């Protein structure tokens, strides 16, 4: 019975530490995701600038009856093909970013302890004895920051996506409204929509953050107790 108990307890601990590893990888992957999205946005800006230059050179300003389409004050291309092209660039960036994150998280090495734990209590003892506590505490510590970073990037990503969609909708539904009036409220509307839709996710994120914080301090205590225990002083 004791053997089964110790295997169950250490199994729970190791599964939690596998999750921590995934959070850490997720955060690193989000940096990749951010970089891909930045490149996509730079490409969009480049295309817009190129189109504007072409218009200036050819004598046609980027405007619709004198009122430029604006995304947060930045001129948007009036050519519908270029506009769709830019949407496709952003969409491809998003898909590539999501694929990159998914691949990196899927490739995280987890569960390597399972075979050892099948030996029962000696396996559990081996896992705990071989644990590099300092490195592990560092990983949990990074995972805490990583999870916060992941939540922030996620909200920013949704915010940008909603902003682009709203701008897209505005361009076609408020065609006759002067751009400078309608578009200035898009960031606020987008933020409210994103906060409403990610409320549960954000609450869960903060709960996870607090539980990772508790885990960090508990593991620190456990590592210290394990090193000081009688059986490790022999």
């Amino acid at each position: 019975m004791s053997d089964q108990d110790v295997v169950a307890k250490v199994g729970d601990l190791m599964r939690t530490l596998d999750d921590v590893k995934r959070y850490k990888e997720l955060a690193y992957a989000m940096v990749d995701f951010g970089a891909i999205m930045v490149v996509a946005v730079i490409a969009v800006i480049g295309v817009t600038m190129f189109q504007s230059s072409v218009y200036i050179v050819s004598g046609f300003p980027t405007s619709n009856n004198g009122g430029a389409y604006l995304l947060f004050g930045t001129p948007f291309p009036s050519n519908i093909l270029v506009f769709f092209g830019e949407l496709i660039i952003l969409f491809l960036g998003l898909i590539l970013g999501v694929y990159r994150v998914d691949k990196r998280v899927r490739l995280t090495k987890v569960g390597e302890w399972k075979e050892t734990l099948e030996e029962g209590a000696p396996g559990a003892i081996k896992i705990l004895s071989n644990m590099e506590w300092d490195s592990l505490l560092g990983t949990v510590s990074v995972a805490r920051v990583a999870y916060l970073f992941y939540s922030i990037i996620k909200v920013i990503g949704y915010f940008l996506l909603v902003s682009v969609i709203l701008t897209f909708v505005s361009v076609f539904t408020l065609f006759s409204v002067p751009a400078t009036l309608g578009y200035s409220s898009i960031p606020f509307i987008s933020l409210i929509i994103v906060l409403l839709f990610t409320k549960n996710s954000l609450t869960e994120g903060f709960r996870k953050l607090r539980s990772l914080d508790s885990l960090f301090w508990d593991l620190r205590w456990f590592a210290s107790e394990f090193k000081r225990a009688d059986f490790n002083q022999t």
Partner: protein
Amino acid sequence: MRLNSREQISTRPDLYVLARIIKILSEKGQTNRTALATAAGISYDRFVLYLDWMTTKGFVILAEDGDVHLTSAGGQAYEQLVQWIIQHVGQLRLPRKG
């Protein structure tokens, strides 16, 4: 083969190996040294060092016929170690799933 004092000081027993030896003895009862070393997955030379250390601690007894016997002290030490882990790992506040 006996450990000299220098070897005894520098040799820190691996808890995993100790636990394996005790578990095998508690499951199979008295066992001869070669079989025990094989079951524990360590070389005979290393096994002798462990056997010497465990005998000194009173965890096992080496019978005249060469078999190794687990003592109640050995069984208790193993049980205490397992209970220590259950108790301490059980106190960790692991994040809930979902």
